[in-house]
């Protein structure tokens, strides 16, 4: 009976190479791999046709797919190499870690940290002693030390014995873990030992492929009762396992299910290249940059190679690592520029490799969740297109709308949104055309990298999109889509990104356009406490920034631009009133009143602002009259004055109303005097403007206007405002109800 301990670094290409060659040499009769034992049933699929890494092993609770965990593998993962070797050699292979069920079963004792945090805490402590070891060897960076000592050893015998000894020494001095994390750690190692005992009973020689840290704990086996005591009473949940496609980008992600490998593309290169690693990498980079029209010649490649190797020698490294190569690329290829390096990072260092899984892999939980939701919401994937009119006030309609909006966020375009919910007014209906195409099933599998349920996946996806979005407009649209899809947890991320984008966006129009959806979100959306605060501060910062930029943005506009800006300002103004923060409202109105009356301002905007400030009570009637008098004085060009009148009388660009003129004889007199005073030769120029303004008023108002102008005494007569207190009292409760005040 022989046991081989192959201690590895997860996702280390050097470890993967060493594991593969060690297995070839040792030819064990059974291979144990660190991973969830529930996955034994699907392990065989790893050798199936159509399976290509990066892929991830996915385990989820059968009755609740939202509780799930992923184990990602790349080509260069030692576990993957061990798995492939065993399947090719026809040797039994088993996963020997704690059951996946334990990981996402509810924690029985009250514990502030989730299971994932326990794992993190253990990881942190484990890593620290390695740092000590690296420092002792003169390295300031643990990853690089491990790379030099282990990963860069391209040939020769594996380092497993030395690594095991080093780990044993480290474990003796490791600082204690938090109690909960330590218990989990002990349970995991007990599970590994139990699996090992069973395997050694059945087979003559067994190879264990596990994290190097665990090797010393497996080397000496305590009595079986010790381990079974540790493992007693762990929760049992029914778990389903399957394979899902993964990407190098997801391997690099630090959060969520990412493996936190910063350079999967580089590792892939290290693993798949057997000679001239440095030269081949630099050629790859050169070809990439050449494709982007950057002049990189073979001479550059030669010089970069020399520099990288000299740097490695200067730093005492056996082989130039990614750090040296990147520095050489920066110094020689790009002339110190960082932008091309970002491209190299995205395309090569991380890479955009997407894995595939065989078609007969078990259903992914996202599909299971989608089926469940379809059943509940009585929707059937049908190839024939059908239209639905959803009433959002009902549970069924609201649920269907949420599902379809979420699927759209995941690029699963089952439903086509036909509109029906106009942004500001908010009717309660949405119209959709549903049309299921077979390729959408593939999209579901692809989308399952984002999460196990539709809601989780959509939220993750929104976060990802928000992180990549560049313009304010993109993010504003995303806010609205997130609201429709009812994903409050993702909303905060979108809003944070929006805040960042707003800071660097110098286009006031963009800032103004971003306000209304946010204000609506705060007012009508389902926003939780913290989000509401964030939302308010976001709206506030947008308004402040808009206020700073607005004076310049309003200057010297032509009619078309002024009309557009008026529309934006009107919506933004409504938004400012909607969020109902007195201080913000004052600041906004202050800015508007500072702008109004400037000579550089288009007449349309000036008139519109004057009216707005009068209506909000910022200026009294006398001030508004004074302003109108100024705007309509002789010194002002007639076309400007005419557009001023248009802005003043047609609020919001609608048909407008003459009521103000009817009620305020002074204003009417001003307008009348001005029109009478327009010289005959310029009158035809302003006529179209005036006709557009006055022609839109309702007929009775126009008639009344004419009557008063013909008879000045009628104009002077005050409007009848006699109030009947008895009748008014009858209406009061209704008004109070409508306005929401007691």
């Amino acid at each position, binding site marked *: 009976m022989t046991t081989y301990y192959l201690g590895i670094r997860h996702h280390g290409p050097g470890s993967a190479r060493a594991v593969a060659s060690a297995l070839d040499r040792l030819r064990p009769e059974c291979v144990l791999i660190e991973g969830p034992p529930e996955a034994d049933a699907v392990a065989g699929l790893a050798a199936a046709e159509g399976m290509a890494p990066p892929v991830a092993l996915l385990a989820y609770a059968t009755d609740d797919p939202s509780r799930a965990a992923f184990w990602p593998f790349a080509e260069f993962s030692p576990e993957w190499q061990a798995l492939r070797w065993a399947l090719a050699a026809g040797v039994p292979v088993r996963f020997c870690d704690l059951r996946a069920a334990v990981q996402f079963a509810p924690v029985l004792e009250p514990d502030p940290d989730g299971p994932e945090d326990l794992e993190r805490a253990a990881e942190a402590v484990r890593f620290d002693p390695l740092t000590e070891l690296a420092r002792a060897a003169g390295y300031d960076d643990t990853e690089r030390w491990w790379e030099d000592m282990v990963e860069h050893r391209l040939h020769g015998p594996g380092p497993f014995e030395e690594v095991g000894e080093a780990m044993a020494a480290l474990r003796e001095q490791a600082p204690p873990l938090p109690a909960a994390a330590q218990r989990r750690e002990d349970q995991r190692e007990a599970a590994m030992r139990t699996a090992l005992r069973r395997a050694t009973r059945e087979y003559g020689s067994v190879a264990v492929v596990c994290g190097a840290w665990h090797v010393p704990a497996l080397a000496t086996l305590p009595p079986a009762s010790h381990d079974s005591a540790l493992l007693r009473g762990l929760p049992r949940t029914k778990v389903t396992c399957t394979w899902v496609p993964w990407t190098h980008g997801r391997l690099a992600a630090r959060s969520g299910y990412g493996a936190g490998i910063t350079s999967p593309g580089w590792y892939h290169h290290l693993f798949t290249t057997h000679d001239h690693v440095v030269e081949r990498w630099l050629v790859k980079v050169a070809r990439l940059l050449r494709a982007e029209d950057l*002049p990189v*010649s073979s*001479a*550059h490649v030669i*010089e970069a190679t*020399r*520099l990288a190797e*000299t*740097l490695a020698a*200067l*730093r005492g490294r056996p082989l130039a690592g990614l*750090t040296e190569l990147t*520095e*050489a690329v*920066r*110094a*020689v290829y*790009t*002339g*110190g520029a960082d932008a091309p390096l970002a491209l190299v990072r995205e395309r090569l260092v991380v890479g955009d490799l997407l894995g595939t899984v065989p078609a007969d892999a078990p259903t992914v939980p996202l599909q299971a969740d989608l089926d469940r939701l379809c059943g509940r919401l009585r929707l059937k994937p049908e190839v024939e297109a059908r239209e639905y009119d959803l009433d959002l006030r009902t549970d069924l309609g609201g649920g269907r709308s949420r599902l379809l909006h979420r699927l759209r966020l995941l690029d699963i375009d089952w439903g086509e949104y036909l509109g029906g919910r106009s942004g500001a007014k908010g009717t309660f209906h949405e119209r959709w055309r549903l049309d299921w195409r077979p390729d959408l099933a593939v999209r579901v599998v692809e989308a399952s990298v984002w999460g196990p349920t539709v809601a989780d996946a959509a939220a993750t996806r929104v976060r990802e999109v928000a992180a990549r979005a560049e313009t304010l407009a993109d993010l504003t649209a995303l806010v609205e889509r997130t609201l429709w899809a009812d994903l409050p947890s993702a909303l905060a991320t979108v809003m944070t990104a929006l*805040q*960042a*984008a*707003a*800071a*660097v966006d*110098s286009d006031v129009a963009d800032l103004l356009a971003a306000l209304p959806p946010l204000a609506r979100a705060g007012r009508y959306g389902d926003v939780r406490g913290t989000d509401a605060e964030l939302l308010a501060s976001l709206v506030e*910062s947008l308004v*402040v*920034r808009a206020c*700073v*930029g607005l004076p*310049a943005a309003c200057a010297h506009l032509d009619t078309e631009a002024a009309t557009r800006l008026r529309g934006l300002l009107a919506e933004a103004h409504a938004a400012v009133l909607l969020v109902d923060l007195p201080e913000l409202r004052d600041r906004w109105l202050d800015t508007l009143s500072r702008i109004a009356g400037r000579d550089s301002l288009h007449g349309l905007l000036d008139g519109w602002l004057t009216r707005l400030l009068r209506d909000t009570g910022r200026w009294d009637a006398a001030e508004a009259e004074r302003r109108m008098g100024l705007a309509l004085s002789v010194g002002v060009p007639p076309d400007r004055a005419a557009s001023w009148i248009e802005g003043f009388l047609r609020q919001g660009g609608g048909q407008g109303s003459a009521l103000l003129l009817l009620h305020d004889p002074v204003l009417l007199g001003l307008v009348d005097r001005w029109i009478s005073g327009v010289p005959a030769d310029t009158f035809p120029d302003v006529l179209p403007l005036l006709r557009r303004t006055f022609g839109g008023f309702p007929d009775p108002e126009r008639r009344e206007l004419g009557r008063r102008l013909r008879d000045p005494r009628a104009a002077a007569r005050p409007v009848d405002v006699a109030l009947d207190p008895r009748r008014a009292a009858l209406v009061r409760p209704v008004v109070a109800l409508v306005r929401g005040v007691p």
Partner: protein
Amino acid sequence: MNTDALLPGTLRPHAEQEYATELAALAATDPRPRPPGWRLSPWAVTTYILGGALPDGTPIAPKYVGDRRLVEVAVATLATDRALLLLGVPGTAKSWLSEHLAAAISGDSTLLVQGTAGTPEEAIRYGWNYARLLADGPSRHALVPSPIMRAMSTGALARVEELTRIPSDVQDALITVLSEKALPVPELGEEVAAVRGFNVIATANDRDRGVNELSSALRRRFNTVVLPVPETAEQEVAIVTRRVAQLASSLELPELPSALEEIRRVVTVFRELRAGLTEDGRTKLKTPSGTLSTAEAISVVTQGMALAAHFGDGVVRPADVAPGIVAAVVRDPVSDRLAWQEYLEAVVRERDAWADFYRGCRDLV
């Protein structure tokens, strides 16, 4: 090594004179192989630049405060016999680093071509002593070698400052030197071949790239190292404090109580605007067009100290540094003003301890 005795009263000694003892100690204890023509090994050069202590306890003062990797790339470049181009915004210690590299590697930092819009080709190749030329005809004696030519014949490092200020046709004279490692003298029918150890360090201003962009033929012969602005606020505060103290004593400003608080403020403002992000990482900002380098921060603080000493009550107050900051930030009257006002309203105003500063700036805009 340049052993010329230092004249008393010299305003600024060369690096190899000022640090002669350190260089001698490094050379004495350096066991590692030295590239041909080098006085020190690449490891010792790195130690000389970044500071440290020798095995025998001799301390080596740090000359450049910053990323070790950058210095390593620069030294490795010179060791592979490639010309080195140091890029960076003004005030990032490009010339400083180039001088010390030359001093450590060749023991001579004086082979210097200062690039200007009027730099002639003679400054890079060679000129003639016309009296001799007329009297004796072309000969070696009539030839006046440029610093580059002298560096080639002695196997030393030549320095070219502000490379991009030099007219393009003159820049291109360097191509032959860098690729052939020889300088032909057609008038004499001979050439000056470079001795091993010869190399060129050039510096150029990032923002001046457009002035006389290097031809791609020339650019290809350089490895580029970009010197960044200081990485952490503490590092930058330390640099500013040290330089301000030196400047104040050489300008003979009256002694002032510590201006650390204002220095910190100036550095914070500059860093935040430069990075387009507040130090707490919560608010993004527009970046103004000015460089806002450490060197500018130093001059703003010195100016504030001068104001406080001569016109104020001797204590550096927010109002003393405010005009300098505004002048440094608002270079473009439209876009910079917008960025500055946004910064004032969105960031400065919200900071409780910054109320005086906010008022001081607000009055100026």
